[in-house]
């Protein structure tokens, strides 16, 4: 009997505690910049800490999935606590722009990055670039077997040997690029031919690279920076990168930021963006996340090709209508 009272007591205290905890006003303190980040804490956490110190205001970050956080901002509407969105895909930034949820970034900040990597209306801008590569298992693929272009992959030689991740945002961005460069007709044909060539489906870049390392699949279409995480754990991880050049498989996507219309203090947000495109931050990205700095005159990340050498196709990265088109094209081709 007594134990029941104790349990009831504890429950009561816990409930009251929860309620009191909930009475904190939602509005964050004046001096805090609230970021919704689709980029991992692991990648940008150290930079955020440094920024807090250098810029002199608090930064709070909600980490999550890029698309889910963008959708959350849309659902929150004018009550969103977020001031700034840091997504790892231009499509999410484009979606927020189309919802009318972004504000214009001052041109002196925008102009620091190449015009290919920012919105033409200044609603979002890229912070780092990531290229698409062909990752392959060096024990199972000879160098002369590697494809010269993404179009080769539909041939018999590559049947069942190529891994891809059609539900993944970065793969879909690559398909969008292909549509813009080659047209819908040809892209659909490529998707259908690939699909008939027994591609191995993975859920994302990490699982694809992992499977290549185990030898389950010979090669795969992935982003440029995953391999280095595996190499840090296992220097003999048997995977290497190969670049096709001048075609859609070599597209460069961005991770970038938007300032939201719900920002309490846009000047803080702009200050933070300016910080991200400083030479120090860009060097940090190249060294730590192995992504491409987007301000001119910087070295590419170690062991990777220069952007100009890759010769990426020129496309509007944030065009949302293109994304929907890509999704239906993938569905029509039977890939999704």
């Amino acid at each position: 009997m007594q134990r029941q009272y104790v349990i009831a007591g504890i429950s009561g205290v816990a409930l009251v505690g929860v309620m009191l905890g909930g009475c904190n006003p939602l509005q964050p303190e004046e001096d805090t910049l609230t970021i919704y980040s689709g980029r991992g804490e692991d990648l940008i956490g150290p930079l955020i800490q440094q920024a807090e110190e250098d810029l002199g205001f608090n930064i709070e970050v909600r980490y999550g999935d890029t698309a889910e956080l963008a959708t959350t901002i849309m659902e929150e509407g004018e009550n969103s606590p977020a001031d700034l969105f840091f997504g790892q895909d231009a499509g999410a930034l484009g979606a927020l722009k189309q919802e009318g949820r972004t504000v214009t970034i001052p041109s002196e900040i925008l102009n620091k990055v190449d015009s290919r990597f920012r919105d033409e209306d200044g609603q979002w801008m890229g912070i780092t670039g990531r290229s698409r590569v062909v990752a392959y298992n060096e024990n199972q693929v000879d160098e002369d077997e590697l494809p010269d272009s993404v179009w080769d992959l539909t041939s018999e030689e590559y049947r069942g040997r190529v891994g891809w991740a059609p539900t993944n945002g970065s793969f879909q961005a690559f398909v969008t690029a292909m549509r813009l460069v080659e047209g819908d007709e040809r892209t659909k044909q490529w998707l259908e031919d690939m699909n008939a060539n027994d591609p191995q489906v993975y859920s994302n870049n990490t699982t694809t690279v992992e499977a290549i390392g185990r030898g389950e699949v010979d090669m795969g279409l992935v982003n440029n920076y995953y391999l280095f995480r595996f190499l840090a754990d296992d220097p003999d991880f048997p995977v290497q990168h190969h670049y096709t050049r001048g075609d859609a498989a070599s597209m460069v996507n961005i991770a970038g930021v938007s300032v939201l219309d719900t920002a309490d203090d846009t000047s803080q947000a702009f200050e933070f963006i300016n910080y991200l495109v400083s030479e120090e931050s860009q060097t940090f990205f190249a060294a730590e996340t192995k992504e491409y700095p987007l301000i001119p005159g910087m070295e590419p990340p170690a062991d990777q090709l220069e952007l100009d050498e890759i010769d990426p196709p020129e496309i509007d990265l944030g065009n949302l209508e293109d994304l929907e088109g890509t999704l239906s094209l993938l569905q029509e081709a039977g890939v999704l």
Partner: protein
Amino acid sequence: MFLLLIASITALGMILPPVYLVLRATQSGVDEFLSILTRSRTLETIFNTLSMVAGITLLAVLVAVPLAFLTTRTDLPGKRFWLVATTLPLAIPTYVGSFALLAFAGPRGSVLQIILEPLGVDRLPSVYGWFGVVIVIGLLTYPYIMLTVRAALLGMNPSLEEAARSLGYSQRQTFFRITFPQLKPAIASGSLLVALYSIQDFGTPAMLRFDSFTRVIFTQYRAAFDRTLAAALALVLMLLVMGILLLEFKLRRAGATYYTTSSGAMKPPTIIPLGRWKWVALLFVSLIVFLTLVIPVGVILFWLFRSTLFGGVGYTSFQAVPLWEIVWNSIYAAGLGALVATIFAIPIAILSVRFRNRFTTILERCSYIGFGTPGIVIALALVFFGSSYAQFIYQEMPMLVFAYLVLFLPQAVGTIRGSLLQVNPSLEESAHSLGRNSWQTFREITLPLVRPGIISGAMLIFLTAMKELPATLILAPIGFKTLATQIWQATAEDAAFATAAEASLLILMISSVSTWIILSQEKKAS
């Protein structure tokens, strides 16, 4: 009054997601929606989902019922150990489970293939697709059935069985004619949890390439940022869930399940000596534990020590928050969720059993909808309402607990209901006639008798809440990290496997300790 408050909060939680979905879905063009819906591919996906659910449920029943029986009614050596070990798979995130299957039995480069390589096995048959999904989800969710069946076995009055035995039934006849029929409601309610869990799971189908409906919904959100179409699809999924709920309800009614014990005095059930069968039984439980626990833990340890093994520098991830705080957050959030949801579940279970009418039945049935809906849908529904109408708790602890309530309530409703069905209402009636008021009767008669159900329910919620992801990411207070978000973060973009391994191990450790404590409590009480 109290009941009314609880019922209305719960009803609110259940109504929000469908209302939200209807609001969103009606924004999309009807044509677009219909064209997606009638695509042959969509129908194929629905069929896929149903066949997956059927396979998973069957596998889970086949594993769970013998385990429950062995750990409660036989002289199996080390019962408590096996009980804890066979409960733990619930705490393994499906992502880790899927990875474990691939690492162990993937077509190439997996442990099994490397072992078989000298025999000329270059490539194993594929584990991807229906088969793999059924194995992984079935083996990670069977504890739902095991724990409900176990609670039923513990609450069952042994005198019926004794009577059957004394009337000349053999051990086997007693089981199939007396014990098993009494377990049907528990099996059904456990299976319902398994079925709904598998419908809304995203991680496993995504990793093991199986086109389930939830995967289609996620793709719609993630690829096209399309809230309206995703909502329309989620609504279809919700109808599917309601179909399953109706089916279980019909089955339950057809089974005419009112089994009551004749006395409130709990006598320990007879323990059946296994004799020669002991070794078979041990082999069976060992096999299950090997598949569901040893293999995943092996993979986790491999991640943890990979850099040491291969002489790498190790990719250690940045941590702004100390680990102990993350551990505490996990225990705190999941514990609070379990506590609150169980408190809410008790009245619903009692209402649906003791005051059975159309309203209470609907209330009880509807409590399952949240559990069968993809977490991201529930999370977004709560974002929509919370940010506009409950700003004072939005993205604060109560909001997260409310989300856990909506998501996990039925886990406790089911187990408590199962226990309550075995309690003869005449016990409560006699307490009343002896001058006890309703509250006293509840506290002194009903509560002690349904204890096993309450304990199982709370434990189920605790274990599942600890690995919950989408709602925790979006609705927790900003900066509030849990072990589950840590695992997700480490595997999603960062590929920081050592960090993921560390967090997975901690989840398992917390789960085993808490399971152990709860089970000891149970023992003390009986």
